[in-house]
């Protein structure tokens, strides 16, 4: 049989993959468990690979014959069920690692937010090494016996499936809900992993500064510096010095701490709130100076571009640093009048 391999990647907002599926004599069927509707990728995968699609809501096939499972799970059970059995799983919804079975969802077994665009053909030898599935042990006799059974279901699964109006609305709404649900999961993760830890750290810092009396000493240094435009320009100038800026950059930690300290003084009324604007620019003239090679790497720049780019960006930060603060100061007039 002339089966062909297929490559499936994650779509926009998706997770996991890419998966390579190579049908074999034993595994040449795939199942779609999508509430009775037939996603377009089913047809595409059928066409590319020559495998047979089975509607999981109408009939079932043994696990050891299933090359692939297609689900439309919003993150409860199905998205984890097939990976748990070691079956490669494609989710048409943008669901990540979630649900009670999430520990089984791995990028090797699972890919989500898959549409037609994400399904593509690959040459056989490229995929041969990549395609492997843990559930590969089975006896062929069973497979043959089952095959006969499926022919009787063929008319049902292969009849042209016109989606009716109600089904379309249902699927659309399901997709919207799943996308928002996934967005919420990611947002909670971001808040817990990055925002709250930093908040705890800064809150502790504020507690120590305000509670211990360091704040008073600090205010003596900070207020004259951050309370007028020249002081802020000097601060910005220092932060932008090309030999200093890469050292001040990492994680923007120093900028965040100085910003918090200035914020505390503004809150106490020692510094006029209008100066918040130039201060935001002054504490960050070193912005990204440590990250230049990595950032240029993400831009897929060539080695010689990085060689030129690092000093070039450092120089431009230096040239722009203090003027940015000055412009921000000009723009701060009329901000919070009467304070």
């Amino acid at each position, binding site marked *: 049989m002339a089966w062909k391999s297929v490559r499936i990647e994650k779509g*926009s907002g998706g997770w996991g993959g890419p998966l390579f599926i190579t049908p074999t004599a034993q595994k040449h069927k795939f199942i779609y468990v999508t509430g009775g509707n037939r996603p377009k990728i089913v047809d595409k995968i059928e066409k590319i690979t020559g495998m047979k699609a089975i509607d999981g809501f109408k009939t079932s096939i043994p696990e050891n014959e299933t090359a692939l499972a297609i689900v439309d799970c919003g993150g409860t059970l199905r998205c984890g069920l097939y990976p748990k059995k070691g079956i490669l799983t494609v989710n048409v919804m943008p669901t990540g690692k979630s649900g009670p079975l999430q520990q089984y969802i791995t990028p090797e077994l699972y890919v989500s937010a898959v549409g037609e665009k994400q399904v593509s053909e690959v040459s056989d030898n490229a995929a041969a090494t990549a395609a492997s599935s843990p559930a590969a042990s089975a006896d062929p006799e069973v497979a043959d016996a089952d095959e006969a059974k499926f022919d009787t279901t063929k008319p049902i699964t292969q009849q042209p499936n016109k989606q009716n109006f109600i089904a379309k609305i249902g699927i659309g709404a399901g997709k919207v809900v799943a996308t928002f649900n996934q967005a*919420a999961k990611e947002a909670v993760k971001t808040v817990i992993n990055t925002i709250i830890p930093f908040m705890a750290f800064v809150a502790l810092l504020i507690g120590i500064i305000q509670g211990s009396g360091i704040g008073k000493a600090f205010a003596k240094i900070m207020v004259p510096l951050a309370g007028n435009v020249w002081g802020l320009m000097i601060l910005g100038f220092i932060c932008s010095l090309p030999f200093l800026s890469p050292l001040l950059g990492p994680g923007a930690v120093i900028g965040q701490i100085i910003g918090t300290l200035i914020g505390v003084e503004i809150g106490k009324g020692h510094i006029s709130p209008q100066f918040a604007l130039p201060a935001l620019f002054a504490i960050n003239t070193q912005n990204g100076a440590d990250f230049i090679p990595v950032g240029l790497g993400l831009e897929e720049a060539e080695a010689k571009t990085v060689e030129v780019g690092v000093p070039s*960006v450092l120089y431009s930060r230096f040239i722009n640093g203090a003027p940015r603060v000055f412009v921000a100061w000009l723009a701060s007039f009329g901000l919070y009048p009467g304070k």
Partner: protein
Amino acid sequence: MQYITGFASWFMNLFQTGGKTFISWMSSIVPVVLLLLVLMNAIIAFLGEDRMNKLAHASSRNVVTRYLILPFLSAFMLGNPMCYTLARFLPEYYKPSYYAAQAQFCHTSNGIFPHINPGELFIWLGVAQGIQKLGLNTMDLAIRYMFVGLVMNFIGGWVTDFTTAYVCKSSGIKLSKEVKLTNKPAESDEKATA
């Protein structure tokens, strides 16, 4: 004994003061940022990366789209640090300048759209919490932060074109200003299969 008690209550006071600050942030900032993140993540998932890539192709030609519109949208859509990847469509010569502008857009828009750079949110929030404490509206500050950013980040990107020219001249390295046409089909091919 008095000294020990005094020291202990002073010591605990540090954490109580910090704790009060923390809880006030948890109840005022966290819910807003969280819900905003949910919406932004959803919008980004709906729009998709493909459209951004198309935009990046189209924006490489002139200064305004290159250092103003593209980095602004890229920060909004992809956030830090993925926003830098859009510059892969630019000619080599302009990549450092794009970086210079993009890194700053990851901060100046962060006041209004904290989903852009949640890891470094306190550059903005550190200063803004003082404003909040005074009972003033931080949005006034956030909007001016963004607009001054739009102008100055653009200028920052543009100025880097000249510093790049200077570094090229002094080091003798030449960088291409042309969009690599051979790269284009390969890129879009990769995207099609992606």
